[in-house]
């Protein structure tokens, strides 16, 4: 199903601008230093979390292999299947991510991963993860 596009809104604009530049942006509280995933706007105490660059390295927490094909071929694993993962960034936050460039049969908990960027359809560029 080529043609699926990721669309920005006000809250996600900076994240997608970063991705278009090949940068993985996450959030960090300037007061306490805690790291947050990109969709979390503020620290629990209300302090706005700032956009910061993540190293782009992660480990695999868990994954699922969809019976349906990916929404765009660029989002497929080495065998073309859609592999959804939860990855833990080196900084700590978790992200949902498509796994690319890997044989799904070789995936395992804790596998080292590195970020890549793809642009499905005509929409925003997004991070995906591949074996490190």
């Amino acid at each position, binding site marked *: 199903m080529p043609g699926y596009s990721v669309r920005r809104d006000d809250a*996600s604009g900076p994240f997608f601008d970063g991705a278009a530049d090949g940068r993985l942006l996450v959030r960090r509280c300037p007061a306490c230093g805690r790291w*947050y995933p990109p969709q979390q706007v503020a620290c629990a105490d209300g302090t706005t979390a700032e956009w910061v660059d993540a190293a782009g390295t992660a480990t695999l927490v868990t994954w699922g*292999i969809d019976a349906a094909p990916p*929404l765009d071929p660029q989002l497929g694993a080495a065998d073309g299947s859609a592999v*959804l993962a939860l990855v833990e960034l080196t900084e700590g*936050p*978790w992200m*949902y991510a498509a796994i690319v460039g890997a044989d799904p049969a070789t995936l395992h*908990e804790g596998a080292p991963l590195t970020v890549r960027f793809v642009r499905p359809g005509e929409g*925003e560029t997004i991070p995906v993860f591949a074996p490190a």
Partner: protein
Amino acid sequence: MSDDELGRLLGRAAIVGLGITDVGKVYGRSALDFAADAARRAVADAGLTMSDVDGVLMSNGASGGVDLRLQRELGLRDLGLLSIVSSYGATAIAMVQQAAIAVATGQATTVVCVHADAPLQPEQRSSAAYDRSATAPAGFASYFVASGMRSANAGYALAARRHMARYGTTSEQLGAVAVAQRAWAAGNPLARFREPITVADHQASRVVMDPLRLLDCCMVSNGGIAVVVTSVDRARDLAQPPVHLWGAAQCHHGQPFSHGNELGLWTGAAIAGPKAMAMAGVRPAEIDVRELYDCYTITCLVTLEDYGFCAKGDSGPLAESGALGPGGSMPTNTGGGQLSSFYLWGMTPVSEAVIQIRGQGGDRQVPRHDVAIASGNGGLLDYHASLVVGRGPRR
């Protein structure tokens, strides 16, 4: 308040009425219509009339549409309690708990708790009701969909895989849950799927989102269920054997989406379950019947562990042993559960607990039915509620 004091408060109330509408592929009716039908059935089942009702708690499923209009549908005047309650799959138990406290503290005397849903449309696959890619979200939501988070199936596949990777749980063991529940469903006239299945059938069912197969996933249903909660004193004179409330607790885990998150390994059940059992004054070994939210087979397994029916990580072998099915040592989801009977969120387990405690389970009735536990789970193992009910007053 101590657990014992909380249990005594809750113990002043009982479930005295149960109403289940036609459920499943029932088309052409709104969720509000199902809700009113379920409420009328529950009130009649109790031997009450609508004029006895002075409280209504209601909840929605995927379709929405159940709201405060229900009062007028039912012709109810001067209610002391009227609310829409929402904590996803934990709502049914949350409503019963709230109703019991309202009864115990005098806010209302007789409360109807109702859940109804009508997400199924003719000529449409069940999965369409929960498909997130169909609605073309924007922002981070559209990015999650592109990443593959396209349905509830995807999220629970992540949870199941983690349990499997950490504890060695196998797909066949997940299948054993589905097999046991289908065997129970054979005795439930309201169950949608009643033909026996084997683990081989489970393994042959199509992969939906690996590691989940079709037979690991609940169905989607239209319909409504209501229960009536009133005081134990009033319950003595009513039409049905009262189902006494012994303990109820919620735990909404709220784990940060970051390092240390226990998705798939531990849930709020590990706090809510022991709390409800402490209020009831029972240990897991004293519970006769388990009605555990089973949107997916993994949900049932992780709840068995969190409630202490087996050690952490041992639920797969427990299911494989046959303990959960008819004739087993731990009867679980005795109406077939959401996997085989019908999916009306938290009301599926609550209604079956009521039926079993009353001894009205017919061909599926468990011989020993003095104490039952029910669970409610919502989100991606995010929201949890536990309810312990008994045939007699709290001990």
